[in-house]
């Protein structure tokens, strides 16, 4: 008698070593206990508002709207959160939960470093020990974030195995968790991994769509026609989509990192190029070869450089409720520069993938239509890499 839990259609599940099973069961029980607990929610809301700076702004990008000459564009400014990205929403929730569970140590994986910084921040705030696993390649691409984590008191472990990027950091964090469970919570950063993580992370990120809905009704008196967000594992996207899933007239568009193009091997566009598989605790779509070996994916964006996608996104794709489109490095870099020059906002290279698609979409829609783009993070961390991409060497 088995009971496969945490399914989104055929996706999800708990494909993890036996060593971790009691830990995820314990986590699920704790989450079920606290998620509707008024005291827990009061504490979390206070942290989100007073510490992280929520609610984040919904900003009408008037100049961009005029310039593109089509749909009205709003930006959901998750980049204005404390620590500079949406990652803090989930981390404050999980750290508080871990604390209630009596854990004293947080471990995390990170790609761009934003989740690592957020976890190190929450650990510092709550007096917990923190170890962050980061692909060695990414520690070079995102050196500034490595320094921030260290400044916040975290230990950063550069992961040298495999492609030395995000997927290897996840593998190493999972290995670490199997060796130390008693005092340690694995603060997973995206809507991926074994159940209950995809649900927990989604619930903590759903504040984004909750706010968009209220702010949109207040500003426009109606819902938007499309919500656009970038997708790696997919946490800011699911957060932006979640409260609109039942509103069938709102188009939900996820932008995957196509790297140098989906017709090349240097891509991380999972839904465009991957197939169904089982990896990192979940059944979902993964970039892989014919033998099921996970592909060494590539994107200019360390945060989207992941060969899989969260199970709920895989299901939204299967059911057709959300659309997923590939965006190349070049398009993302152009959008990064465009938003800076047009609106004075330097968005993360991850978020710039969503901006790039909006630049294509907006002119095809009439001015009565409304698009919301989630700016998941700020782009300071990317300036050196973008300069390099443009052939300019700057010292930080």
């Amino acid at each position, binding site marked *: 008698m*088995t*009971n*496969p*839990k945490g399914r989104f259609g055929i996706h999800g*599940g*708990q*494909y*993890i*070593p*036996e*060593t*971790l*099973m*009691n*830990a995820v069961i314990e986590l699920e029980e704790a989450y079920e206990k606290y998620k509707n607990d008024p005291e827990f929610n009061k504490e979390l809301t206070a942290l989100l508002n007073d510490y992280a700076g929520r609610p984040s702004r919904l900003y009408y990008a008037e100049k961009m709207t005029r310039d593109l000459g089509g749909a009205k564009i709003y930006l959901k400014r998750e980049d204005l959160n404390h620590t500079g990205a949406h990652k803090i929403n989930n981390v404050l929730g999980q750290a508080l939960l871990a604390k209630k569970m009596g854990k004293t140590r947080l471990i995390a994986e990170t790609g761009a470093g934003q989740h690592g910084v957020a976890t190190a921040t929450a650990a510092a705030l709550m007096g917990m020990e923190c170890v962050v696993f980061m692909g060695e390649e990414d520690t070079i691409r995102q050196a500034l974030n490595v320094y921030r984590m260290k400044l916040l008191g975290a230990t950063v472990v550069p992961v040298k*195995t*495999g492609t030395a990027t995000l*997927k*290897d950091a996840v*593998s190493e964090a*999972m*290995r670490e968790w*199997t*060796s*130390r*469970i008693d005092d340690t919570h694995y603060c997973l950063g995206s809507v991926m991994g074994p159940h209950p993580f995809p649900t927990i992370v989604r619930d903590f990120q759903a504040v984004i769509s909750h706010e968009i809905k209220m702010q949109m009704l207040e500003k426009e008196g109606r819902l938007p026609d499309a919500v656009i967000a970038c997708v790696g594992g997919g946490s800011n996207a699911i957060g932006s989509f979640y409260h609109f899933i039942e509103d069938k007239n709102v188009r939900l568009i996820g932008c995957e990192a196509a790297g140098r193009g989906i017709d090349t091997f240097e891509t991380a566009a999972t839904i465009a190029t991957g*197939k*169904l*598989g*089982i*990896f*990192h*605790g979940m059944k979902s779509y*993964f970039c*892989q070869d*014919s*033998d*099921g*070996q*996970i592909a060494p994916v590539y994107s200019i964006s360390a945060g989207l450089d992941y060969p899989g996608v969260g199970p709920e996104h895989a299901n939204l794709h299967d059911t057709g409720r959300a659309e997923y489109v590939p965006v190349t490095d070049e398009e993302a870099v152009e959008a990064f520069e465009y938003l800076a020059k047009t609106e004075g906002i330097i968005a993360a290279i991850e978020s710039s993938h969503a901006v790039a698609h909006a630049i294509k979409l907006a002119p095809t829609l009439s001015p009565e239509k409304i698009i919301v783009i989630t700016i998941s993070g700020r782009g300071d961390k990317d300036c050196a890499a973008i300069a390099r991409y443009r052939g300019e060497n700057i010292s930080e």
Partner: protein
Amino acid sequence: MNRIKNAFENKKAFIAFITCGDPDLETTAKVVREAAKNGADLIELGIPFSDPTAEGPVIQGANLRALSGGVKTDMIFDLVKELRTDVTIPMVFMTYANVVFSYGAEKFIGKCSEVGIDGIILPDLPFEEKDEFAPICKKYDVSLISLIAPTSAGRIAMIAKEAEGFIYIVSSLGVTGMRSEIKTDLDSIVKVVRENTKVPCAIGFGISRPEQAANAARVSDGAIVGSAIVKIIEQYGRDAAPHVGEYVKSMKDAVASV
């Protein structure tokens, strides 16, 4: 007929793990024959995976060497077919769920049965997800081996009751690899296993020295050794077979002395 029970018949079993294709498949064939000749009772053949999340650095390295050497799943089925011309001891695959899933579960498990593989160990397939492959394994008489960990409190009876072939008891927290000391209370785990099933159980993770193997065999029905063997193959490369043979003999003697 499934051969796994032969490994435990009137004796304590010594189980050897080898990563297929490290450094190449010819060496794997030689190492398997040498291990069998020197007393291994069961061989675990590792099908390499790009991201082996349950493995420590030693076996991760073996996976990487095998994959960079160009090993494909079909080549490993051919290897087993060739080995079965003279190797009679039970052999099982150890790999990750995606290797089986992407090949097509029915096709993979059917092929296991056809070439003479007696069981499959998938460290990322816990009890809750075993229905993914268990019904197909049953159909082809290939045992889906269950694992029990030091953190399995409250789950041991449930797992043991539905176990097939043998039960793999993970000695320690963490990933595969050699350890100087094993602290888990293995006696209590084995006691619960015995109360719930007649399926034999063997202990693995962290065993490298003869006295550790003897201890494992004293507590359970056998000892499983992976990283220590892989390390010898890493050291001697294509000339590893006689060295592995010698090592297997010393470990088997220790297990048999119990």
